[in-house]
């Protein structure tokens, strides 16, 4: 049901019920008069108007955006204030219907009981109002999370580059006659990559060594395909293996290096992967490849280039401002991609 309609049904129905129930018990006790009906309906109308005014205030000043502590204080204050006003209203209503008993109705105890009763009713109202709000909100935040997951999944599926897989399989098919042993190891490497890409999305970060193994498998397969046109070099500081990094990140960078670098060069080129620790124990990962980075412009047309923005986004989500990503040209022949991964903290897994 529409949220606004639900509110009106509950608001009207609730306070009407309040008046009727009160009148019912009153009639059981000492019979019912027109004056009592008028008085109780007036009181219910006052409740109706005052709570509606509270809702208006809550919405207008967007109380839902306040932190919990501030929100509770505000709500408590307003409930107390409304109860006081309500207590006065009861006196005025009695006065209007000429049922005011000056001696009885101004006794502190009676006033206190009236105050407390209206406090209870207002609290009940506030409780229900906020309960509905938070339940509804919880629902929509679940939907939001589902959407995010879906987007992530699409991203991941795109990352598993079909062009690479089919080319690799094609090379392997040719290798079966030429070098069966090499063909066998290529099949193993390909299945390693496929398996890794299927399971890795369960983790925010994984040990550096696991990612590096995948990258090695990947580059070995590309070496089969490009042969003498691709040269690969690694320079990994042993300390790097103590770090954890986001899965598929280095892999994506290396894949881009092949796709936009090596595969566009007739003579081919090099890929160098270098990892070492910075002064503050941050892990620096450099990937240097032949080619030139031309910025996002040239890629936009084909819907590519979201590899980079995706990487930046992921680093930001996981490490906040402590990680960094850079891509720049080194001279006329090389592109360098640099990632800084901050020293690990414990809450990451």
């Amino acid at each position: 049901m529409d949220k606004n309609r639900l509110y009106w049904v509950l608001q009207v129905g609730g306070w009407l019920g309040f008046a009727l129930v009160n009148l019912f018990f009153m009639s059981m006790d000492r019979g019912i008069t027109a004056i009592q009906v008028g008085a109780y309906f007036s009181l219910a109308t006052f409740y109706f108007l005052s709570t509606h005014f509270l809702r208006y205030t809550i919405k207008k000043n967007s109380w839902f955006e306040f932190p919990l502590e501030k929100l509770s204080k505000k709500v408590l204050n307003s409930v107390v204030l409304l109860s006081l006003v309500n207590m006065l209203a009861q006196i005025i209503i009695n006065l209007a219907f000429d049922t005011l008993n000056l001696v009885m109705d101004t006794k502190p105890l009676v006033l206190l009981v009236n105050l407390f009763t209206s406090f209870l009713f207002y609290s009940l109202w506030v409780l229900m109002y906020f309960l509905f709000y938070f339940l509804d909100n919880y629902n929509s935040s679940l939907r939001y999370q589902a959407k995010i997951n879906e987007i992530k999944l699409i991203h991941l599926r795109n990352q598993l580059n079909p062009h690479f897989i089919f080319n690799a399989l094609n090379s392997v098919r040719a290798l079966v006659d030429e070098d069966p042993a090499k063909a066998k190891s290529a099949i193993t490497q390909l299945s390693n990559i496929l398996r890794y890409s299927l399971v890795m999305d369960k983790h925010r970060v994984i040990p550096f060594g696991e990612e590096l193994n995948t990258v090695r498998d990947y580059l070995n397969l590309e070496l089969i395909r490009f042969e003498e046109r691709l040269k690969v070099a690694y320079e990994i500081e042993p300390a790097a293996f103590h770090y954890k990094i986001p899965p598929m990140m280095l892999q994506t960078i290396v894949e881009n290096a092949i796709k936009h670098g090596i595969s566009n060069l007739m003579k081919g080129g090099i890929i160098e992967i270098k990892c070492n620790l910075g002064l503050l124990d941050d892990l620096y990962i450099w990937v240097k490849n032949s080619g030139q980075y031309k910025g996002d412009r040239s890629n936009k047309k084909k819907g590519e280039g979201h590899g980079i923005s995706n990487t930046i986004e992921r680093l930001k989500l996981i490490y906040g401002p402590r990680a960094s990503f850079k891509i720049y040209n080194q001279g006329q022949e090389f592109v360098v991609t640099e990632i800084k991964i901050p020293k690990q903290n414990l809450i990451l897994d």
Partner: protein
Amino acid sequence: MRALVVDDERLARKELINLLSNHDNIEVVGEAINVEDAKEKIEQLQPDVLFLDIQMPEKTGFDLLEELDHVPLVVFITAYDEFAIQAFQVNALDYLLKPIEPARLAETLVKLERKVEELKKEQIQEAGGPAKKLTLHDQVFVKDGDRCWFVKLSNVRLFESDGNYIKVYFDNNKPMIHKSLNALDERLDEKSFFRASRKHIINLSWVETIEPWFNGGLVVTLKGGDRIEVSRRQAARFKDLMSL
């Protein structure tokens, strides 16, 4: 049938040649490793058919076709490229996906053979025409943005120069190719195509009516309604050509 295999990867070429070696009706006369290499070998070997990989370094298979004057039959090969497949599905003779399925390749070869037969018949019919010139039966490859076509020259009614480009008019399309009208004029068979003016070359088989115009010029109306002015200098030649 004589085939040229164009792919930058040695293993991919080897795999395809290996698959083709199972068929007697096709002979692989050469391999090319990039667009420049392919251009030379096409010139030199005159293959009937190209097995052409689309993704190659620096220049793609499409670039190669655009640079060729005379386009042989083409079978495209790609590992994975949805857009390219969409683009050439309607126009190309066929396309193959890597890794190539032997049964699928056999089908392609049947289609190829049929097409080659057809072309031979056409060529016999117009025997005596000067070799090396583009006749109505030749096809050109035209790419405009994401779309591409193999167009038979008999379907092209008009070439119009536009800066460094030529607009090619056929059906309801007029994509541009990067060429000069003079260079094209030299390559076209003068029996079928006529240089009407500095800006236009018309296909004579599309001419519907001819009317006199100012200064001794002519206006030609093509089937489909395009009206083209023939300059005074060319008008005399045109009259000679059209009269018995």
